[in-house]
């Protein structure tokens, strides 16, 4: 990235080239500079350059084994980078143990202390502080934190008397009570059911705004990453493959992997002749080349979001096929449509009316219509 990009500090994410001397470090709560982590001969992550500005809500998103948790653990101080440095609040953190870092973590499965009650769990961090905080002050702040996560009055409960969602909030209170610079969240919602998860997503978001501290969320759930964070950092096999605001990640995936992993996608084999203004799909259908395709030529894979396709019953369709499956989801319907020469297409259709005749039936011949500009072209 150029000097220009560094200068306009509005750009929230800056990928730093190796060896750049960063003087504006204090505006960033977390920085990874050329970080790599190896376990013996296995490389967990490599070439991680990342700068998270103060007060951002960042999601590290990727499939399991992509290195996102390793990155989080390097911020927390549970792992030390094999190469490069992790900075927190402008300070290099290499060799600094977890208990001296100004960060707190909400662990996967929460890791609450089973031998302490709810309030003692929340007060644990405050009790470690030196100089010591007076007991009454600790109690007051622990209760305040519990109120904040709407668990006021639950202080004397044992951990095993709390439901999963309540335990999750105890873990949250236990972390935020220490007023960390950065809050780390390791798959915090994975153990909750869908309804609770949605509620917690909203709660986390408003809590982050209220506290104004930097949140770093690790998740494999793209919906969670997109819905909660300001910035998403997509990782694959130990590397960052794309960073940006959620809508940019979704609308302009940088690679086929991102397109596939973030949201559902249809992959279509196609070719682009050099100089030609058209994309020729594998079944011979030619389409106007999307503006974003740039100079990509030869064999390509075209990605198309299921919701970008509409099913039409008249003849004006781009492609046509046979409905093989219909999955009714209530507010929307997912169809699997077999298009000759191209295979199965996934199509998501919002329900526009209560009229049952609007639903396509399995076995029905149907047209697929979409804007060629909705296509994403990637080298095959």
């Amino acid at each position, binding site marked *: 990235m150029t000097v220009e990009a560094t200068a306009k500090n509005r750009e929230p994410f800056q990928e730093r080239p190796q060896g750049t001397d960063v003087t504006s470090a204090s505006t960033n709560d977390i920085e990874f500079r050329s970080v790599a982590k190896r376990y013996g001969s296995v490389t967990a992550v490599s070439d991680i350059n990342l700068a998270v500005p103060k007060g951002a809500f960042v999601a590290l998103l990727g499939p399991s084994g992509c290195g996102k948790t390793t990155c989080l653990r390097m911020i*927390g*101080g*549970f792992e030390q980078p094999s190469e490069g440095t992790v900075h927190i609040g402008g300070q290099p953190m290499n060799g600094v*143990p*977890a*208990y*001296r870092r100004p*960060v*707190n*973590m909400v*662990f996967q*499965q929460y*890791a*609450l*202390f*089973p*031998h302490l009650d709810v309030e003692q769990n929340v007060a*644990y*961090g405050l009790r*470690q*502080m030196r100089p010591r905080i007076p007991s009454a002050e600790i109690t007051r702040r622990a209760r305040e934190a519990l109120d904040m996560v709407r668990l006021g009055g639950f202080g004397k409960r*044992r*951990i*095993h008397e709390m439901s999963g969602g309540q335990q999750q909030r105890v873990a949250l209170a*236990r*972390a935020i009570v*220490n007023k960390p610079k950065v809050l780390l969240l390791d798959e915090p919602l994975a153990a909750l059911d869908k309804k609770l998860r949605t509620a917690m997503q909203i709660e986390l978001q408003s809590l982050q705004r209220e506290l104004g501290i930097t949140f770093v969320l690790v998740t494999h759930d793209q919906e969670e990453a997109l819905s909660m964070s300001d910035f998403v950092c997509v990782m694959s096999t130990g590397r960052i493959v794309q960073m940006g605001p959620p809508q940019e990640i979704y609308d302009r995936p940088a690679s086929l992997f991102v397109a596939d992993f973030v949201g559902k996608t249809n992959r279509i084999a196609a070719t682009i002749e050099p100089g030609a203004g058209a994309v020729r799909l594998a079944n011979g259908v030619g389409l106007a080349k999307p503006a974003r395709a740039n100079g990509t030529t030869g064999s390509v894979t075209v990605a198309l979001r299921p919701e970008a396709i509409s099913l039409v019953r008249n003849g004006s369709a781009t492609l046509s096929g046979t409905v093989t499956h219909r999955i009714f989801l209530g507010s929307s319907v997912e169809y699997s449509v077999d298009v000759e020469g191209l295979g199965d297409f996934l199509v998501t259709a919002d329900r526009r009316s209560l009229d049952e005749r609007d639903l396509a039936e399995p076995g029905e011949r149907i047209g697929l219509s979409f804007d060629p500009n909705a296509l994403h072209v990637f080298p095959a």
Partner: protein
Amino acid sequence: MRSATNTKRNLVTAALVAPAAAWLAVFLVLPFMAMLVFAFGERAPEGGYQAAFTFTQFANLPTRAAAFWNTLLLAPAGALLCLLIAYPVAYYLAVKADPRYRLILVSLVVVPFWTSLLVRTYAWMYILGSRGIPNLLSMIGIEDVRMLNTPGAVLLGIVYGYLPLMIMPIYVSLEKLDRRLLEASADLGGKPVSTFFGVTLPLSLPGVMTGVALVTILLLGEYLIPQLLGGGKVFFLGNALVDLFLQSRNWPFGSAIAVTLVAVVVVVLMVAMRVAWKVAGTRQVDLV
């Protein structure tokens, strides 16, 4: 339907428990009853038991005060000494040791059990006896060191013989300890020492209690170690019982001592269990 399955389940339970229950009834409860009866009886002129109802035997207990004191002092002291030595070992095995070698290291703890305790304690007799360490010490000018037949020798034998029994339960409870709780403590600013006293130790208390109770109870009935390493000088109730039953054939007095000892064991056990349960009640959660 439901009661039928319940009946069946009860039958299965009964069938599973019956052998052990029968065994205990015949070889534990009945002898103990006999012992209770004997304790209130009199010694027959030619030795053994003679029917009577008297508290004489219990009134005579103070004549064996030394054995009581030795037992009630050295058994808990030995258990405590075992604990102090066993905890770091168990901690190393469960937390610090390389997982690849853990199994080997843990089995090494049990290896001493492959040889009889008698043989191993005999070896200590020679090591501590006049031809052992005191002999070596006299070579460098330190004369007249008595090691054998002292409380120290008995304690050493106790630690040597019972250490594995203390290491194992502590190792198990530390091994079950969720590592993420230690990380959580560090994350919340807990230095290693406060993490140990705030998380590791309280969560391993059930193992500690089990170990202490196990070793203490076994030690209360210990015979071999005081016999060999304490000589006639440091003796336990076990040694007194052997004397009374086999030498002077004073069964009623022996029974009274045994009954009193059992009463003490029961009290120790109840206290230990109460403490262990109190802690264990909260331990269930981290298994979920």
